[in-house]
């Protein structure tokens, strides 16, 4: 899991300090026309447009592209990718004419199974993921506008990447000998809470995410500064998000529990 920030000063000025959580829910690829430079049988390009994590796009070679035609120019400042990266180098690119391509992000070889690219916003109709050096197996790709939380999470965070839920089951013989041990793992779970959010922000900026989260997973990085760049995951809420009026000054608090997509 890793967050990759391109030109952090611009990203900060456009979307806020990197101490603030980032939520990658906005997904322009969902309605886009998709194509890829190549795809192995049983691993079509369309599979990476789905939210699910059990259908995959896999190019036939190490140099490949996965392209989305948004039908009209749109502002994009993030790309989220979930899958088995296999050491591949990834990069977000954009084009206004589907011919000349420019780099939106720096190139990066993400670790783990989730990658979030934050970059200065660009406005373009065509967007693509450029793959190089190795063949990845990609479960999901999305482009859009990142949601930055209004306030940071201060304490009591359970980093999603460390929030394992594990069941261990041993087998013992009649005479007390150890015969075997099975590990049953159910994935990742974590909880996040925010306080003192302005009500206007919650209603206008946050609520579209709350609505979207009822149906779709999202990328979540709780504090994408250098110390916590690995703590990002592709997650989904377990229940509705219900903000609460928390004081007399039009402040609200909210929180949600998430489950994380486990490794590919």
């Amino acid at each position, binding site marked *: 899991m890793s967050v990759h920030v391109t030109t952090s000063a611009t990203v900060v000025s456009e979307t806020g300090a990197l101490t603030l959580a980032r939520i990658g829910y906005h997904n322009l690829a969902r309605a886009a026309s998709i194509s890829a430079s190549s795809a192995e049988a049983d691993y079509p390009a369309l599979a990476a447009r*789905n939210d699910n994590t059990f*259908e995959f796009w896999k190019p036939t070679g190490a140099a490949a592209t996965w392209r989305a035609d948004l039908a009209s120019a749109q502002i994009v400042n993030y790309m989220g990718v979930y899958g088995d990266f296999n050491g591949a180098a990834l990069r977000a690119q954009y084009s206004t004419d589907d011919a000349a391509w420019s780099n939106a992000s720096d190139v990066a070889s993400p670790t783990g199974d989730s990658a979030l690219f934050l970059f200065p916003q660009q406005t373009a109709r065509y967007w693509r993921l450029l793959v190089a050096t190795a063949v990845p197996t990609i479960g999901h790709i999305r482009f859009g506008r990142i949601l930055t939380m209004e306030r940071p999470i201060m304490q009591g965070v359970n980093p999603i990447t460390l929030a394992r839920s594990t069941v261990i*089951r041993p*087998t013992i*013989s*009649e005479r007390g*000998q150890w015969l075997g041990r*099975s590990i049953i793992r159910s994935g990742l779970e974590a909880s996040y809470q925010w306080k003192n959010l302005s009500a206007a922000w919650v209603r206008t900026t946050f609520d579209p995410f709350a609505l979207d989260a009822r149906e779709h997973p999202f990328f979540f990085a709780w504090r994408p500064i250098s110390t916590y760049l690995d703590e990002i995951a592709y997650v989904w809420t377990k229940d509705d998000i219900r903000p609460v009026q928390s004081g007399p000054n039009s402040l609200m608090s909210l929180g949600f529990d998430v489950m994380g997509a486990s490794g*590919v």
Partner: protein
Amino acid sequence: MSEEFGRVPVQLVEIDQDHCANTYGVSPCTAGRIVDSTAASPVETAQAGSASTITLHASTSAVDDAYNGMTVRITGGTGSGQERKVADYVGATRVVTVSVNWTTPPDSTSTYMVLDRPNACVNTFAACQDTDNFTQGTPKTIRLCKPLQDMPADWLAIPSVTGVTQNPTRINAGGQSGSSSALGQRGTVSVSILDHPGSDLRLDPYVEDRAYDPLDRGTFWTKWRARNPYYQNRPIRILNGYLGEALGDMQTYNYVIDKFSGPDSAGVVKITGMDLLRLVDDNKAQAPALSRGELQGDLTISATAFNIVEADISEYDAPAGTLRIGDEVITYTSMVDVAGVLQVTGATRGTDGTAAEAHDEEDQVQRCLRYTDEPVIDILEDLLTTFAGIDLANIDSVGWAAEGDIWLTGYELSTLITEPIGVGTLVKEICEQVLLFLWWDEREQLIKLQVLRPPTETPVSLNETAHVLQNSQNFVDDPTQRVSQLYIFYVQRDPTKELDDENNYRFARLRLDATAQGVNQYGEVKVKKIFSRWLQSFGQVNDTGARMLARYRDNPIVGTVTVDAKDRATWTGDLVRLTSAKFVDVNGSQVARQFHVISAKETIPGEQIQYELQNFDPVATFQCRYMADDAPDYLDATDEELALGGWYSDEDGLMSDGEPGWRYQ
């Protein structure tokens, strides 16, 4: 892998669904071909073409966008074999702009078809739009699994399985247990799956041509059910293994789909499967099959020729065979089909203990099934393959032959079956009367056979230190299986009479174990009656009686033990030797007991295996058979020859190596 510390058990489900080998609209499939020109032919000649266009025939539609989303396929001439989706169509010019440029641009020599791919089938029979040309191809496999961290992408599995319950095959050795039929208990599997939106990727060959998003239409299983209504008897497999193991190395259990239900209000789908021996059930297979034929006219008591109508000659044996009309059995030497009328000549009336009688026009004429001195193995194979439709590849023919060659010599059976009887019933009779058992090995996909005979295999040793899990042993005596008196009625007088009519048999034999019935042992009589249409000789009856009483004179011990998955190589039909504190001699010392594994189940897949056992203690200390003249001397014999053969000992009762000799009983 099963012995590794930190193993991660996994369970997958595979379902094979039918899949047409053809491509929609491509010969031989004629569906979806747009015929929109004055020539009224789906194939037309293009007017022109370029890297990104093709100009259709002048008489095609003049309506803009008429073919948008459809597919143009070049069928001949320049660029033949290419297909492209129509991105735009201008009616006035007949020019199609394709979504992706042609590799070889078409021209005026190119012929083409326009295919309505957005409305294509999904390559299943239920969705087929040209059923005359539907061609079964390689089945498409859907693979599902339980949700799993680190699920490998190359499984291509949907993590929607919420539960798998496997009820194993259970042997009924010799048909004695009252808890199941002589064919034992069928192995079944029940799979629960949570329904979800379906993308149709990998299931719909034309998903990229659709004008809708499959995720927005129906759910995975509602669509699957609509596309695959003929799911019964299609393969369903359970794979039990460990993360990191190749799918081909996992333990696979094979069934056929029996039922489908759901999705219910909670979105749960349930699919149940049964083992292949379900095809032997009486309501699915009968021998002989019901014959449709009827007499063309009245038949006098002495006539030796007559005609049969309303049937095909393939329903009867030709040229010679045996028929039943009413209560009379008739043999014939010739049957020929003359313009749909089956002409029977050379008839011998009132055979096989029946009496000749007159019959009326339209009386039913039933084919009879006759076996004459046939080996047991051949009869069973015939019943299962010819009448129950089981593929010969699913019969362990090599194992059957080996078992029959050694243990079933002298069991050549004869019978005449004059009416349709369930194959399951007939097989049960043979199992019970010859004392053998069949079971479906779901791992090897084979129907196996074993005779109730002294063991020749080396049993697998199990003990409480290294194998048996804590608190998992449970044994009981089963007095219902004990037999002390056996009545066998054999050689039917009239095969058209009731099987259990004692007066319909020429012979009856009683064999009893007076000692077992006596006051010093069980003190009661346990009678079993067998009415046999199969056994024909005193030798066969005597052998059956001796073996049955030897096996069931004492209350069988049945029970269960559970072992760790590291020992799961042992399976149904195997022999185990269990050393347990549950079994001691009269002085309290532990004794190892020998058991047949009559059922095996992965109670926790990949972790724990439960065996159901029935004791198998041979009466004789040694057993042997007469050997061929060229058999080796005792010291030169192999282990297998020692297990099956016999040699004379010296006058002290010892062999040349000091071992005790064989004792004749």
